[in-house]
């Protein structure tokens, strides 16, 4: 009797019966245990954006000087790119966890195969993986925000909201990433992931303002999810907050809804093949 699965939460009825045992935390425990053994890889994720901030903020900044902030008032180059790097690292971490990591575990680790032989169902696994990606992303965001504070780049109490915002961004990318993974057949398909992530990282006003582009290109950039993440972060860390930012937030709520729906519909394909 002790191993019987608890009754499913009502709203989860939309998943196929038997796909959820309410045991996602078991997966979190597993991830935390595995990370404890590979702590170096875990910790290293924090340093990448910090290296970027030091190199680009100082070095490139010396070529640029000041740039106009969200409200037009000039801010330092480091203050300009830091929120961009924060948004980008939330995206990178979430996408990596939800695509490469999940696919590797599927194809080589056979980890899920073992889990599905227990009361755990596909939904437990999906929630557990996304949950872990968020915990990890949240820790990285917290670390990066502390570094920004140390460099004096946080000037407003609104910056505290950058942490939950980073989690929303990470959740959106993780959900869409996992949905995408369910369509992947081989490693070759992951070139497409790189193909989506790298240009976004480089062109979504992370390193220079939108005004650099011709108008038609500005419109393209404005459609990219990372652009909205950067806008959100830049507003919060510089303290230029306005109602329009809810629009950016809506973008991610839609991404989460679409990502979770597609991913859960495709869970069988993802996990039970």
């Amino acid at each position: 009797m002790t191993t019987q699965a608890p009754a499913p939460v009502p709203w989860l009825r939309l998943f196929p019966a038997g796909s959820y045992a309410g045991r996602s935390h078991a997966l979190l425990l597993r991830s935390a245990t595995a990370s404890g053994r590979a702590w170096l890889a875990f910790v290293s994720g924090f340093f990448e954006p910090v290296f970027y901030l030091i190199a680009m903020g100082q070095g490139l900044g010396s070529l640029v000087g000041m740039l106009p902030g969200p409200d037009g008032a000039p801010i330092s180059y480091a203050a300009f790119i830091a929120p961009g790097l924060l948004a980008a690292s939330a995206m990178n971490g979430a996408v990596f966890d939800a695509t490469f990591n999940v696919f590797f575990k599927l194809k080589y680790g056979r980890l899920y195969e073992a889990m599905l032989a227990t009361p755990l169902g596909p939904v437990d696994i999906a929630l557990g993986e996304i949950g872990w990606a968020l915990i990890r992303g949240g820790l990285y965001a917290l670390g990066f925000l502390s570094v920004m504070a140390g460099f004096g780049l946080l000037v407003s109490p609104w910056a505290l909201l950058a942490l939950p915002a980073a989690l929303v961004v990470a959740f959106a990318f993780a959900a869409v990433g996992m949905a995408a993974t369910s369509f992947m057949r081989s490693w070759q398909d992951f070139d497409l992931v790189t193909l989506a992530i790298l240009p976004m990282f480089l062109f979504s006003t992370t390193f220079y303002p939108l005004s650099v582009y011709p108008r038609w290109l500005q419109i393209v950039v404005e459609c990219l999810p990372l652009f909205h993440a950067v806008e959100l972060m830049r507003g919060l860390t510089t303290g230029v907050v306005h109602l329009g930012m809810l629009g950016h937030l809506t973008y991610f709520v839609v991404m989460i809804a679409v990502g979770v729906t597609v991913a859960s519909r495709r869970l069988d394909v993802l996990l039970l093949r």
Partner: protein
Amino acid sequence: MSELASESSAQREPAVSAALQGAGPRSTGRAPGPWGGILLVVEHFWTWYRRNWRATAVSSVLQPLLFLLAFGVGFGSLVAGTGSAAEATGGVDYLVWLAPALLAVSTVQSAAFESTYPVLSGFKWQRFYHAMAASPISPAQVALGHLVWVAAKMAGSGAIYVIVIALFGGVGSAGIVVSLLAAVLAGAAVAALVTAFSATRENEGAAFNALFRFVVIPMTLFSGTFFPVDRLPEWVQPLAFVSPLWHGTELARAAALDRWQPLAALGHLAYLVALLALGIALSTRFFARRLVR
């Protein structure tokens, strides 16, 4: 030598060897020479590449192109005409100043990548290095074949990159061809050292992750690619001086912009050649240790 040895032993026991001679087949195999063996390993990778080149197109062509667009064109237009940028580049267009450095970054990055997972796969997952070592090919030839192949591939994709850069107006002089050689040299030095490192790994996990995050990425950021090294905080600058990428970048830039300082150039060259020699010595040794034990 050995024929003489077996002749003398045959003379000692003529009856037995006579009975054994002639019976059974005679192998068609023979051992290739020292260079021939290396080229055969390269031929192996070339056969692989002919089947799989599409898979590498994104990382070897598109990725450098995106960096060129983002920083050369995009960031370049942001700083165009500003005094601080002109001061940093010595008066030339930012794109022209950046291009040879991007060339070096792309070769060094692909050198590092090609020498981590693929090398470990040869030892551990696909294990085809062991198959090579069971043939007349020696472990040192396997290691050198890998390095020659990586260098050839870097030179090839680097040449394509030069053409792309030229299309965007980033080529100032024919010196860029010498830049390409410098970039390949820096890449080869990195490839040799990373190959040696990979040959000592039992599994990928944390080690490669740490290598990329703590060595390769900082190297690309702190080696004077996007801005002169003296713009960095003073405590970071020594990082550049040990970085093979910085030396390669300095050489590539001197060639492209025709700003040679003979003594400095010799120093960069000597450093890279020394690293390459060290990497070759270590990787041939570690390959032998792992394949013959």
